[in-house]
């Protein structure tokens, strides 16, 4: 109980701190007390695909959370996780750090919020649903925030992929299938020397 109370206290305090509630892509944010949580990967299964950004632990958390939140079959998890891993590689460092912390908090929040002895990735699918719904419906704003961010990350991992579009009857971009060209001519940028010749300070 004391751990839970401490964590909730930290959460409340952090809510008032200015640096905490920043987002990157569509709301990827986190709770700073996640920095206190373990980050090792020793108990996570090896992954067949090479990861560019996520650790094995983070990959496990994000794939399991994504399939539960979006109501997808478990086998879609690897594909979603791989897509998120590739996308996060190109994101700004602040967003990357937020994503890491958020996933860490989610993995270990079971102990604090639901008093469960198991981490998120060790819960049964039914238990995971209860746990994630707890974040979605929480009376604590910060937990709803994390759920929003996680849902955005999951949506990005699945619905950005053309393989998902058929399932929702989205016909996809025009580019590559409808041949229309712009007639507007954008000017080409000029080298620094050209700017200096005109505006360079003497």
């Amino acid at each position, binding site marked *: 109980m004391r751990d839970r109370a401490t964590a909730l206290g930290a959460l409340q305090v952090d*809510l008032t701190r*200015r*640096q905490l*509630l*920043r*987002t*990157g*892509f*569509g*709301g990827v*944010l986190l709770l700073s007390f996640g920095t206190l949580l373990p980050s090792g990967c020793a108990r996570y299964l090896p992954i067949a695909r090479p990861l560019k950004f996520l650790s094995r632990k983070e990959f496990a958390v994000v794939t399991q959370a994504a399939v*539960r*939140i*979006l*109501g997808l079959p478990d086998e879609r998890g690897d594909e979603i996780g791989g897509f998120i891993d590739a996308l996060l590689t190109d*994101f*700004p460092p602040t*967003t990357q750090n937020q994503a890491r912390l958020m996933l860490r908090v989610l993995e270990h929040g079971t102990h604090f919020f639901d008093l469960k002895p198991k981490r998120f990735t060790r819960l049964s699918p039914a238990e995971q*649903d209860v746990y*994630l719904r707890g974040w*979605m*419906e929480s009376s604590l*704003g910060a937990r*709803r*925030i994390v759920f*929003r961010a996680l*849902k*955005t990350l999951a*949506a*990005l991992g*699945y*619905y*950005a992929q053309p393989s*998902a579009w058929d*399932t*929702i*009857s*989205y016909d996809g*971009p*025009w*580019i590559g299938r409808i041949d*229309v*060209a*712009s*007639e*507007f001519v*954008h*000017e*080409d*940028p*000029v*080298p*620094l020397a*050209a*700017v*200096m010749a005109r*505006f*360079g*300070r*003497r």
Partner: protein
Amino acid sequence: MILDTATVDSNVALESDVCVIGSGAGGAVVARELAEAGRSVVVLEDGSYVRSGDFVQREEIIYPRIYRESGTTASAEYAVLVSQGRLVGGSTVPGFCLCVRPPRAILAHWARSFDLPGIGYEGLYPHLRKVEKQIGVRRITPEQVNPNSGKLLFGSEQLGYRGYLPFHNRSGCLDSGYCALGCTYDRKGDMLTTYVPAASKAGAVVVPDCEARQIVTQNGRAIGVDGLFNRSRTGTRYPLKVRAKVVVLAAGAINSPRIWRASRLPDPADEVGRNLRLQPHVAVSALYPESITAWRGIPQGYVVDEFLRLDERSAGHGYLLIPTFAFPVAAASVLPGYGAQHRELMTLYPRLGAIGIFLHDHTRGRLEFSDDAPPTVVYRLGSMDSEQLVEAMVHASEVSFAAGAEKVFLPYNDIVTIGRRGAYQAIHERGIRANDPLFISYQPQGTLRMGGNPRQSVVDGAGEAHAVRNLFVADASVFPTSVAVPPQLAVMTLATRTAQHIVANAEQYFR
């Protein structure tokens, strides 16, 4: 000309008559007006020079490339997401092209309550007409109303609600629907295809990928801007120094006050970063019996202004109902629900429509500043605005049912459905709480507000800072209250006025 920042390989020092910070609806207008008046102009833009060929119609690629902070900036407590474009042309490039004139009552309120005699409708009209001509403003035709907009039109007409086909600045629109991801086909009259190239043609230089860090002053007068390149040939962030006789701050209502504070400019009235209005937006979704593929066509083809009640004394209150929709990633993020329910909702994607509520807010937020990070947006919706939003959700639901909706989905985290017309108790019971529903703001305003009294405002009616000579502000920061409608035309009109004031008083500013 537009600088290719991939060729920057050293510190850069430039000199010009005018340095403009920002290339969006305010900055691009000022740059063009002053360049065409014969002034040498340097424009600094934090974002990149992204041309239509780069608008690839894919959400996961476009959002990080052209929006600030990869998509959205959250307010403290995550109550509102603030979406701002970050590229040459600013938010006009991924914008929805709605061109609504600033309402007479709002301008009259500003003139009367903020001691701004030149801000009335008649005084601004010539500038407004000039802007409309430059960006090709025209009315959306009935043929251009897509099925989602058609639902709002039909439903509101059934109920007798006042509405209209709005004006927009597209030409030869192909109805691809990808406005929010930048127009691949250059059919928008955004800054990227109008004012920026015109400014360049008139001799201005646009410097993309360059963060303005500090406005430099001397003896109470702005004399230039120090910046830092985000990109270069070597990867080093080289410094840029621009010395100019006039500085125009047009980086938007979040970043302009940030730059002000970072520059340690005087703020005797303690007004910088205060008075923030967000015109928060939330969407009510509806399921129709037939496919309406709401992602295609002009996204916002009809406007209901029945509930916008404006008056000169208090600026009034209320909201607009405007069609809205999102591509799959954004839709999946904002549609309510969890697991199988959410999945089922997404499979209904082609039959979903949505009505956006744009609130004319009275809530006054503020920005909190720190030296090493973007400002934090602090904004808690006030009780009157909350009541307005509850009423608006009822009206949006009512219109949806009148247009034939089978069900309405409210914008909460979990699925709250209304199954029949009139059963709106759930809206009243649930009400509004922090980040549920989650609001989005595309139009922050008011953080460097204008006014005749230096003790209650930051800039005067011409946009010039009360406390710093030769420093002007030309973006939505200067609005004294919410402008009540999409602000593009208001920003451009006021920016034109500011530029013409500088031109008319050239002897004073350029000696």
